[in-house]
């Protein structure tokens, strides 16, 4: 790493000072360096590199914090191995915090003490972002969202054209000329968001959701101005950019005056808007925010849509997205949906809040420089899938779906990867 200017270093340290809250303070002071977290980290388990132990990541940010902000670190730096923030430590931070962590938070759950390791990594990323040291590959995804309104730089005309085509397909499928995919309609019950991967690569998942909305006779709409559920600035750690993206979504809900915001199947999108955005924007949302997973479960439970589980003949397993499950608390809903839409369901081991990350989280899918590591850690997920013997893997997250598709090809799993909406649409009984 090249020499860092004093100004750059001060910007990084300012973030550490700014984040000096209780959650940060306790986590930075609690690690006892027992190393028992190693086996909970996919990077360490799959590559056995000591640098990847979660405690090592904690030690790194702890050493910098203590060097500048504690009596012991300032007076006896060698005693606690307090390090200065310089080119060397910065290079280490970039490699470990961006390149060797998916922010899955599995280490938090298993830490003997309860250190919030993922939070410390997030703060480390915020520090690097403030210093202008976000990996360019990841930053380009954020830049795309900031400049074009979605992270795939899909032009509005192309987006509208895709949705119009899908609308025609829907009309043919349900044999109803009035079936529609409503765009920019005001005063609807639901504003539905999308992951830009859907219009770009997986339009069938939009069709699936449109068909479900049709069956539920839902009053809904999609905005062509702001539909992107993702917020990659959550991964870069740049809170100002995260705030801009979140504000756009909030403005769109207000502009269209919809009663509820439904977040598409996207783990980090759900986390970034439902849980983090109110804090980015320092405001309480005065409208409900739910995921499509919760909505689908409600439709089925209330009898608003009818599904026939016997239509799915194959063995199905579920991949839990870390952000949706561990950091979002949505654990039962997807299982309830599966209990009503498939006959042969098998859990992975471990699953739920203890599930293994697919390897694509934390912005890893955007950072091509870490592709080799990403596929290597994905081997654990591939093995989990193989052990279930399932031929269909369902995941309520487009980011995870993308990684699972790559794992499917790389590890020759020969499985089908689907979203929950696709599965429900297949089991749907139209009356």
């Amino acid at each position, binding site marked *: 790493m090249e020499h860092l200017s004093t100004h750059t270093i001060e910007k990084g340290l300012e973030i550490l000072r700014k984040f000096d*809250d209780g959650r940060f303070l306790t986590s930075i*002071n609690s690690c006892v360096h*027992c190393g028992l977290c190693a086996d909970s980290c996919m990077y360490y388990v799959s590559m056995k590199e000591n640098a990847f132990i979660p405690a*090592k990541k904690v*030690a790194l940010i702890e050493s910098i914090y203590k060097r500048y902000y504690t009596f012991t670190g300032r007076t006896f730096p060698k005693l606690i191995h307090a390090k200065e923030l310089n080119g060397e430590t910065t290079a280490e931070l970039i490699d470990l915090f961006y390149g060797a962590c998916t922010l899955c938070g599995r280490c*938090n759950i298993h830490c003997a003490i309860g250190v919030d390791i993922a939070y410390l990594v997030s703060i480390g990323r915020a520090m690097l972002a403030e210093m202008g040291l976000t990996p360019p590959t990841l930053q380009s995804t954020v830049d795309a969202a900031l400049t074009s309104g979605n992270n795939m730089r899909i032009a509005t005309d192309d987006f509208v054209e895709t949705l119009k085509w899908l609308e025609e397909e829907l009309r043919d499928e349900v044999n109803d000329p009035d079936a529609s995919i409503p765009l920019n309609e005001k005063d609807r019950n639901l504003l539905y968001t999308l992951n830009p991967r859907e219009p770009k690569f997986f339009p069938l998942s939009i069709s699936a959701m449109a068909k479900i909305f049709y069956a539920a006779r839902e009053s809904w709409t999609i905005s062509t101005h702001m539909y992107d559920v993702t917020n990659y600035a959550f991964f870069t750690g740049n809170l100002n950019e995260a705030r801009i993206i979140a504000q756009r979504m909030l403005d769109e809900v207000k502009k269209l005056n919809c009663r509820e915001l439904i977040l598409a199947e996207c783990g980090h999108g759900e986390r970034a808007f439902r849980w*983090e955005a109110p804090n980015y924007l320092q405001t309480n*949302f005065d409208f409900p925010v739910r995921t499509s997973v919760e909505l689908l479960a409600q439709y089925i439970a209330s009898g608003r849509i009818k599904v026939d589980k016997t239509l799915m003949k194959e063995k199905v397993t579920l991949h839990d997205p870390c952000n949706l499950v561990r950091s979002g*608390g949505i*654990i039962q809903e997807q299982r309830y949906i599966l209990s009503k839409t498939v006959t042969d369901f098998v859990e992975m081991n471990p699953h739920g809040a203890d599930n293994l990350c697919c390897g694509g989280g934390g912005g890893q899918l955007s950072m091509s420089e870490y592709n080799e590591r990403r596929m290597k850690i994905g081997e654990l997920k591939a093995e989990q899938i193989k052990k279930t013997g399932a031929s269909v893997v369902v995941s309520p997250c487009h980011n995870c779906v993308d990684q699972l598709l790559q794992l499917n090809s790389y590890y020759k799993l020969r499985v089908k990867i689907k979203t929950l909406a696709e599965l429900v649409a297949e089991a749907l009984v139209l009356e």
Partner: protein
Amino acid sequence: MQGRRPAETRWMCLICLIMKWYLVITYISLVVCIAGCLYHVIQIIRHRKTRDFSKSADTVGSAITYSFTKAMNPARKESAYLHVPTYIAGMLYHLGTFLSAVLLFVFLFSIDLYRTIELFISVFLMVSILCGTAILVKRIFSKLLREITVIDDYISNILVTAFQVCTLVYIHFSLPVYYIAASALLLYIPFGKLRHAVYFFAARYYLSLFYGHRGTWPPIKH
């Protein structure tokens, strides 16, 4: 004059106090330790949780209970069930430390110990000392642990183990070196990693706030 000690008696008291210099040092160390730990407690309170604007899943209360109970269950923690010998050694070592700390107060305030309890305590401390030594040896020889170990880790382990050894010895032979070991440990607690004795509770509290607010904790059985 009535009510005043003669000068000779005052001198005798001072001499006694000087002869028991190790007790004076221990009392001072105890005050420093309590003050240092209080400083950390005040820091925790001063940096208390910032307001979370997102809509809570309203399971924070039960998540806090869960965090300090079932979430600590070794059967639920990979850090425990994948490392049973280390986990048991760590638990016994901590129990031995708490026991030694209680005994320090017993000795400082001259509370009598029954002989039967003494025997039990001695055996337990021997086991705990062995565990502490094993943990230290593991830290020295494990490549993984060396990667994350700093001098503070060695000092902390040595001070706690030395304190337990001296406690064990003091039960049977009242040697002043016990108070030196206790003082060194007390003085070090607020400055080294041993302050996790204070931060541990705050860390688990914050973790439960996070997972409780989002509805992840306590888990619902399915």
